[in-house]
């Protein structure tokens, strides 16, 4: 059982990755393959006046050049609403929108051909301000409002004696996964296409690709290529339709790999938001009301702005008990690049705002930041702003008390390299600050969405050994599903130490697993694997019990045997009459749509989380050093503690990046700095080792009691780092990320 659920087993693909043998999608090749490249619109809003592909076709090595008129099926795609053009046909609505694609014998030739295309554009007025977009002329026939979510609870006009107000701005964060978009498409010879691609959701891709190609979904077979990180950025398609079109146009394999610049231009980003909050409480700091107006910059096309707006709205009040709430959230179309999924999915930005409000309130009523959170924190059985009762484990007070007990860092060491800004810093002008962020993230898809997962498990004898074979369409993007699957199978089938577990490639030959997002795969696909294992065990036990003439009810699988009182049959013998297999589909409990007042049981469950950040800031330089980070997370049950730790560390790092440096530079809709020289993600010296404590209160509905853990760390870490910088400087700091000029703008201290 040491390799079963609860053990820190190691990744089965770990050594292949560490030695370079693991093949990422960009490492794949096919004999005779061509290279694809895409020409993109160089400005944020422009009418296509003329497009001349002939110069591209004349470039040596070019085999095919295609544009909008070569799309045989649906001209647009989209996860939630198909409004995003495969290629621009009339109006381009964001910088980087695809115009044409080329297949050539080399990548250099394909790119040269893109540069040779002659395009004439008529520039159109650019709208990147969400307020202006709400009231201004429509940027698309569907209008500029993707979704409005209004939530009203109690009497929003009722206020407490103490009121605080704040306006906050969150910039555009990029997922910045290291392995850029990559795929290889091969015609199947019968009009269909086989695609290997780095994605988060094979079946969602397949449905959209088939619609654009004018094919049946079964004519598009997708196998997961090795994925170099995702974080939401691969939930929407990028190069999928283009590479399939090129393969079908040329009749042979075509490979596409994005450069870093194309990656920044070619996938959705985290929504920039503007948030205005008014929070009131009584003199004891007990919350009376929360009001917020939130504008989400959805960019040019829908992507998942609808559900992100729903998430932002339903979590905007924070993980607190508040009798009176009014949240008004708008997902708005602009000429910025499309926004969509990124780790935290709408819960991150609102946490930065509601937690800033909690600190303002704490100051106003004279309470410690942890005490005001303790007094207002949700507990199991409490009611959210949506009227939904929290049935989940909700150990928020344990989170608060646990983080409060974690040791604080020592004072500055006296070493120059430990100063923010190093030798440039003046120790006399360096201030230390401590801040907290308490947050929550919904698990799995919400608002009535049905997102099941299907798994097949077979138990067989191969080469004289017992082997469990598992097949799902769950995309492994680095999170460790491949590790968890083996643990679940070993536990559920009672495998012996010599027995093998083989996980087949994720592909569309089995039913959907849904997206690797929303912290859902351990719960949903893990649940499907568990169900299939239970069915396999049932069949095998029935076979052995029948043969032995004993009741099946008393039999179980343990340590590589079918055992019962007076019976112990090795799996090898039990399987002598042939393999057993079962396919099962798992669904989480149903959720409901929100009504006109934003009421409804919209979410399945939540993971709750707290971060504490300690920072040093040079008041004059505006430089910051993160001295210490601590977190406590409600994980239900840690199925693999080492994997959980990795998720908490990595998720926290992305949150710290958002607080300190990560903002995609957008100037009037132009993406001006799409490089790793300008878009700075944290490196190893930017972060201290995270202090972690887990709170394990099993989730009643979840397989093994385990909550998804991946997103919560990114929700509360930005809020904590922001709060620590405010504590150090006395500044209001309302823009995320906080830039050096914000900090050096004039400290109050």
């Amino acid at each position: 059982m040491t390799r079963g659920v609860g053990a820190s087993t190691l990744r089965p693909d770990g050594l292949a990755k560490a030695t370079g043998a693991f093949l990422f999608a960009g490492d794949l090749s096919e004999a005779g393959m061509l290279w694809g490249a895409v020409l993109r619109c160089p400005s944020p809003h422009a009418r296509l006046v003329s497009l001349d592909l002939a110069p591209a076709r004349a470039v040596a090595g070019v085999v095919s050049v295609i544009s909008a008129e070569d799309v045989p099926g649906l001209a647009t795609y989209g996860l939630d609403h198909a409004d995003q053009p495969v290629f621009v046909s009339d109006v381009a609505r964001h910088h980087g929108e695809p115009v044409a694609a080329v297949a050539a014998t080399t990548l250099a030739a394909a790119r040269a051909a893109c540069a040779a295309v002659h395009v004439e554009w008529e520039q159109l007025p650019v709208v990147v301000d969400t307020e202006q977009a709400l009231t201004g002329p429509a940027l698309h026939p569907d209008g500029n409002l993707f979704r409005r979510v209004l939530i009203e609870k109690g009497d929003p006009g009722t206020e407490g004696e103490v009121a605080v107000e704040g306006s906050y701005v969150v910039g555009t964060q990029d997922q910045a996964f290291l392995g850029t978009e990559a795929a290889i498409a091969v015609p199947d010879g019968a009009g269909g296409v086989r695609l290997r691609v780095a994605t988060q959701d094979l079946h969602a891709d397949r449905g959209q690709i088939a619609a654009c190609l004018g094919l049946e979904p079964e004519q598009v077979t997708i196998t997961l290529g090795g994925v170099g990180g995702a974080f939401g950025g691969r939930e929407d398609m990028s190069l999928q339709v283009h590479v399939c079109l090129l393969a079908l146009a040329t009749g042979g394999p075509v490979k596409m790999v994005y450069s870093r610049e194309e990656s920044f231009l070619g996938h959705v980003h985290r929504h920039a938001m503007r948030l205005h909050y008014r929070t009131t409480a009584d003199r004891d700091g007990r919350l009376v009301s929360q009001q917020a107006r939130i504008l989400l910059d959805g960019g040019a096309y829908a992507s998942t702005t609808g559900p992100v707006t729903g998430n932002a709205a339903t979590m905007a009040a924070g993980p607190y008990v508040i009798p009176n709430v009014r949240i008004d959230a708008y997902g708005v179309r602009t000429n910025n690049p499309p926004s969509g999924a990124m780790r935290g999915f709408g819960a991150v930005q609102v946490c930065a705002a509601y937690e800033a409000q909690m600190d303002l309130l704490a100051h106003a009523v004279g309470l410690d930041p942890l005490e005001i959170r303790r007094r207002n924190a949700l507990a199991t059985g409490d009611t959210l702003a949506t009227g939904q009762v929290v049935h989940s484990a909700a150990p928020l007070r344990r989170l608060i008390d646990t983080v409060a007990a974690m040791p604080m860092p020592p004072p500055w060491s006296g070493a120059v390299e430990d100063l923010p800004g190093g030798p440039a810093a003046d120790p006399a002008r360096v201030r230390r600050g401590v801040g907290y962020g308490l947050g929550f993230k919904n698990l799995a898809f919400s608002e009535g969405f049905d997102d099941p997962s299907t798994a097949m498990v077979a138990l067989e004898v191969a080469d004289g050994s017992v082997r469990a074979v598992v097949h799902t369409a769950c995309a492994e993007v680095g999170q460790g599903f491949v590790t968890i699957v083996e643990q679940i199978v070993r536990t559920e089938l009672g495998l012996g130490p010599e027995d093998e577990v083989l996980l087949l490639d994720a592909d569309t030959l089995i039913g959907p697993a849904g997206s690797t997002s929303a912290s859902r795969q351990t719960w949903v696909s893990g649940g499907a694997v568990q169900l299939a294992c239970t069915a396999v065990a049932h069949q095998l036990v029935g076979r052995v019990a029948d043969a032995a003439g004993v009741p099946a009810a008393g039999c179980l699988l343990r340590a590589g045997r079918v055992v019962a009182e007076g019976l112990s049959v090795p799996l090898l013998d039990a399987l002598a009459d042939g393999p057993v297999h079962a396919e099962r589909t798992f669904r989480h409990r149903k959720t409901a749509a929100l009504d006109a007042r934003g009421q409804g049981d919209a979410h399945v469950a939540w993971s709750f989380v707290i971060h504490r950040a300690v920072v040093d800031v040079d008041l004059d330089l505006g430089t910051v050093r993160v001295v210490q980070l601590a977190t406590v997370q409600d994980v239900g049950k840690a199925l693999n503690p080492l994997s959980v730790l990795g998720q908490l560390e990595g998720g926290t790092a992305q949150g710290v990046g958002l607080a300190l440096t990560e903002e995609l530079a957008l100037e009037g809709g132009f993406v001006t700095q799409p490089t790793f020289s300008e878009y700075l993600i944290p490196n190893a010296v930017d972060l201290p080792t995270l202090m972690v404590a887990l709170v394990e209160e099993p989730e009643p509905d979840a397989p093994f009691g385990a909550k998804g853990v991946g997103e919560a760390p990114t929700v509360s870490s930005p809020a904590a780092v922001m709060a620590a910088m405010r504590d150090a400087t006395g500044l209001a700091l309302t823009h995320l990320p906080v830039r050096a000029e914000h900090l050096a703008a004039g400290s109050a201290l």
Partner: protein
Amino acid sequence: MSLALTVDGVPYEVPDVPGNANLADVLRHHLGLTATKDACYEGRCGSCSVLLGGVLVTSCTVLAADVTEPVVTAAGVGDVAGPSDVQRALVEAGGVQCGFCIPGMVMAATDLLARNPDPTEDDVRRGLAGNLCRCTGYGRIVEAVLTAARGRAST
């Protein structure tokens, strides 16, 4: 042009290499040696790190035509059947998630331990600062390198 190149101890003749090709592209596209990754094409992320004549470089910023010294990649440091201590430690400490940065991390860590067999945590963090990882937050990677260093000290 044609290049003569030694990679992981194996000599190669590489025909038809454009004069402006960088070493990362030659390794990956001309030789099909995909153990070395590429992610930023400007020497910022470290995914393409290799040892060139024993010196740690980002191969995307090295002109292939200039290469005269032998190249060592993560595949030359060890393989699945016989991984190096650093490679094994990265897996065992939980330092590998998506793993895209890991071949580059292996090279940076191998170089660091060759220069400094007894590094502090700060030494390791500075030694890996040229290699970006988006998954792990670096905690398990740093732990792995310290573990590998301790392992060498005890043998």
